[in-house]
């Protein structure tokens, strides 16, 4: 039995005035226990929708479906409420971006954790609460118990949220932009914490981010998403050092925190397409320097390039030369 979360043909769409608009278009994804997987891409590419859909969740006005959803070798239905409740929390946990709304503003740290523990089993004791807070790196958790969310710093709130996600004992953790809106040092701290959970507790961590450095730091696999599809996939560090897809190249070139610092940043002309999933052809073609006729008429699929490397760009795949 393989210990992994595996989803095939995942789709998410949102209701608009002109009908359903696709946000995630049939993505396949595999997340192993004790391994990390990052998803990068610009805002609106569907990476957050993908992350929530892995828990069977959608934001208001959306719908999601998957051709298959397998957890530790067993097929799960995302349509039945009972299986969803069993899945959520106990198998797969969720960590959202830090915001004023990420924790219930009325509940103290202790009540947050008790509520989270209570979702798993009744009679959650204070020792369990303190243990969880220590697990996410708080040195003096007792001082924290009575505090309310607005009395904590952003980094502390994020760790409290992580403790809540871990309270139910999941084997997999979905982290949606866990480092966004944190300063660089706090962001590193959260990523290090996630990496240690992967290593020490054999958690499978899926991190959605637009921070390439965070993805590199977390390690494991990396999927690059553009307009609802995965365009390139491979081991994180290898992929970032030797990108194949022109979009990945553009993402790296636009990344501010890379050396040498005196080299000017390069942007990407054009904007992310709207409704690209409803049209034929490669969604990136309009902004791509390599685009040719075939790119605009047929949609490229993700093909194996080398062991662990996948690419959805025919011009580049051919250039790699068999």
């Amino acid at each position: 039995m393989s210990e992994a979360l595996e989803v095939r043909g995942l789709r998410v769409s949102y209701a608009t005035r002109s009908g359903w608009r696709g946000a995630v278009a049939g993505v396949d994804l595999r997340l192993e226990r004790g391994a990390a997987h990052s998803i990068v891409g610009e805002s609106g590419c569907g990476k957050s929708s993908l992350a929530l859909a892995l828990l069977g969740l959608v934001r208001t006005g959306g719908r999601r479906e998957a051709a298959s959803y397998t957890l530790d070798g067993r097929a799960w239905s995302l349509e039945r409420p009972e299986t969803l409740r069993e899945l959520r929390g106990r198998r797969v946990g969720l960590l959202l971006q830090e915001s004023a709304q990420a924790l219930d503003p009325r509940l103290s740290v202790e009540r947050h954790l008790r509520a989270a523990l209570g979702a798993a089993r009744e009679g959650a004791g204070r020792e369990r609460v303190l243990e969880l807070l220590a697990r996410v790196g708080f040195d003096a958790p007792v001082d924290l118990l009575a505090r309310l969310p607005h009395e904590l710093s952003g980094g502390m709130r994020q760790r409290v949220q992580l403790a809540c996600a871990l309270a139910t004992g999941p084997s997999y953790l979905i982290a949606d932009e866990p480092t966004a809106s944190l300063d660089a040092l706090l962001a590193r701290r959260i990523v290090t914490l996630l990496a240690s959970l992967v290593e020490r507790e054999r958690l499978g961590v899926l991190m959605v981010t637009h921070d390439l450095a965070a993805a590199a730091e977390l390690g494991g696999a990396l999927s690059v998403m553009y307009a609802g599809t995965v365009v390139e996939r491979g081991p994180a560090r290898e992929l970032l050092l030797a990108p194949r897809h022109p979009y990945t190249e553009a993402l790296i070139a636009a990344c501010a925190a890379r050396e040498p610092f005196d080299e000017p940043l390069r942007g990407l002309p054009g904007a992310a397409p709207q409704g690209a999933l409803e049209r034929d052809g490669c969604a990136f073609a309009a902004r791509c320097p390599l685009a040719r006729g075939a790119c605009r008429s047929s949609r490229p699929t993700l093909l194996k390039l080398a062991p662990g490397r996948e690419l959805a760009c025919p011009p580049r795949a051919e250039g790699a030369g068999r």
Partner: protein
Amino acid sequence: MSRLARAVLRRLLVLLPTLLGITLLTFALLHLLPGDGAALRFGGEGADPGAVDAAAFERFRAEHLLDAPLWRQYLDYLGPFDLSPRGHAWFGGSGEQPWGGLLAGDLGRELLRPSVGIAGELAQRLAITVPMSLAAAALIFGIGWPLGVLLAVRRGTAIARTLEVLLFALYALPTFWLGMALQSLLGGGGLGWLPVVGLHGRDADSAAPLHYALDTLAHAVLPLVALVAPSLAYVARQARSSVLEVLDADFVLCARARGSSERQVLWRHVVPNALTPLVTLVGQTLPWLVGGWVVIETVFELPGMGKYAYDGLMRREYGVVAACVLLSALLTALGHLASDLAQAWIDPRVRLD
């Protein structure tokens, strides 16, 4: 003294100048109206001047300071000295009744019915309006809030949509129109189900206690419905949008992601967060109801405070109107204070300062 007690005391101290300003404003506005009590008592505007006993007219005006300058009338009203011809000797009075006015705790007597003390009459009428207001507030929030939560949770369904349209219509209806519509529909002229005027039937005084209570209740139904319906619609719509907003919050998503059931999510996270900011409304409803009663009690001829204020205004009974306005102002201020206290008690983030 605790922080809370200090905060409350400070609010109460600020209240004093506010109330003083309100008495001044009410007094000035009332005296801008044409006519006065004397003119009404002695035949009103259209009366034949020859028929009016001019001497009695002037005597009445002098006795009640109606011929004095406004500032003197105001100071007489404010007290604690009585400035009328029979008032304190310091101010040229005969000294028969030196004290009077608000600061002496005296609301005065009616002009046209001198045997009626305003304070006593007001107390009698409050015995009707206060219980009715409490019942109205209980109905407004006891039904409005759960209804709003339900509409938010069941949004998009046919029943919810129908109810939303209905509530909007109710909210848009003027109170007096709704009252009159109910009267003609359910009263003697229509279906004849419920009594439409007054607080008791004709032979209520001789009835057994139980029958008396039922009779009063039957008389209270239509006025309550007419007053409550629009406010209830407003409160329900507000609760609905507040719940909808919280339903989209990240912490709700997180609670779902931990496997909490929809019911747990609703009661532990959504409802408390959605209703906390609405608690302030409860305290503010009381004075708002007083305004509603002026209309409803007039339409249904209930002898409550609202009708007293309306009649007082029509008869230029300055003392009556001023007392009613002052009482409403006091209720407004106390209502705000009470809702702030409730807010601080419920919401851990709010501190009274």
